């Protein structure tokens, strides 16, 4: 049916390729794309895509860009949208790559005196390709966000070996179920790996503690206890202590300390170790030492 027409279109693309290409690149250059991407790269991308477009058009299947003749064109758009998403292009800038092809193509078509439906077909085709680009752009942006989320998750749960047999887990940021799971797993694994008997969970960096967060903490403590390690929760700020009491959260089964330093000194005592001063204190430094109230 429209194989005839599309072959004519392909012929036009073939004959006037260099003209269309230069017009297209000029158009793209006038939009804002050029400041983020080199001229050579733009030229190469445009040329490749035009060749792939010709291949697709020659097949006559203008209505279905998911079909195999369009593989090459889709592939070029795939890599283009991905790289542009990473380079910080907006979706409309990325889609403009395809849409700006309309004008030079129409000019070329009109000089061949084509009918209206020819224009209609090519508009539909380029719209589809443009939408495809936008979708891919969106998808790769989402992938980037997900990757960053995973990285943040991993970064935010370091387990530190503090001393012989003592682990520390400084928590920073809000605790949700997913993060608690990661925290719990990495802590328990670290307990197995190091054979530590005591783990200090420091929540100085946790902005708020509600019932859910407290429950998550208690779960972590209970799991560590099941493995044979004791947990100390430290870094509880006064406001948080007040919140915990007001919420009626039971933290009796857990050892809690106000500061990490208190927790460390308790942990050292529990494991039968001491840190000793080898030089006498200078008089200005006399502070916060020798607090022996624990358990």
């Amino acid at each position, binding site marked *: 049916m429209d194989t005839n027409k599309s072959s004519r279109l392909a012929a036009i693309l073939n004959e006037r390729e260099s003209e269309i290409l230069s017009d297209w690149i000029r158009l793209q250059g006038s939009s804002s794309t050029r400041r983020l991407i080199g001229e050579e790269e733009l030229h190469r991308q445009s040329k490749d895509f035009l060749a792939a477009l010709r291949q697709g058009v020659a097949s006559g299947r203008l209505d279905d860009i998911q079909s195999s003749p369009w593989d090459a064109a889709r592939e070029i758009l795939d890599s283009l949208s991905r790289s542009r998403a990473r380079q910080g292009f907006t979706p409309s800038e990325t889609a403009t790559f395809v849409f700006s092809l309309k004008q030079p193509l129409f000019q070329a078509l009109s000089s061949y005196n084509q009918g209206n439906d020819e224009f209609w077909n090519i508009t539909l085709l380029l719209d589809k390709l443009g939408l495809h680009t936008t979708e891919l752009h969106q998808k790769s942006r989402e992938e980037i966000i997900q990757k960053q989320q995973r990285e943040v998750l991993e970064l935010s749960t370091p387990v530190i070996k503090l001393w012989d047999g003592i682990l520390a887990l400084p928590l920073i940021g809000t605790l949700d179920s997913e993060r608690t*799971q990661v925290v*719990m*797993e990495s802590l*328990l*694994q670290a*307990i*197995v790996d190091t*054979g*530590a*008997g005591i783990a200090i969970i420091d929540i100085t960096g946790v902005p708020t503690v509600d019932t859910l967060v407290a429950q998550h903490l208690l*779960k972590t403590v*209970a*799991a*560590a*206890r*099941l*493995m*044979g*390690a004791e947990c100390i929760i430290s870094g509880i700020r006064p406001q948080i202590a007040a919140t915990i009491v007001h919420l009626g959260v039971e933290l009796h*089964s857990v050892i809690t300390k106000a500061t990490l330093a208190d927790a460390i000194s308790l942990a050292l005592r529990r494991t039968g170790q001491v840190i000793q001063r080898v030089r006498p204190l200078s008089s200005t430094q006399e502070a916060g030492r020798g607090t022996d109230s624990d358990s």
Partner: protein
Amino acid sequence: MERIPILKMGEFLLVSIQVDMHDRLAMSLQEDLTQRIVSARARGVLIDISALDVVDSFIGRMLGHIAAMSRILDAETVVVGMRPAVAITLVELGLSLPGIRTALNIEKGMDLLRLASAERQTGN
């Protein structure tokens, strides 16, 4: 019928669970162990579950029962070598086994038992 061996080490009993626990096996272990605590006059029981991939709520509760029964028979129970995944599962099931002492490995478990036994003797 298969049974889990109970080894005697001095005044302590050592149970190492190497096979998947099914309910009947758990029940027979519970019976054997209480019998053995009495006959061997054991002061402590050490249960090694480091080979267990799965601990369900029944086994978890059975461990709790063993600990409670041993305490009545004047023996401390220590469960050692629980895997992280098992610990997480038990906590999610709401079984934090409050009555059981735990240790990371057999060595630390034995230390704990000796300590408990020494404490008791000085207490007497």
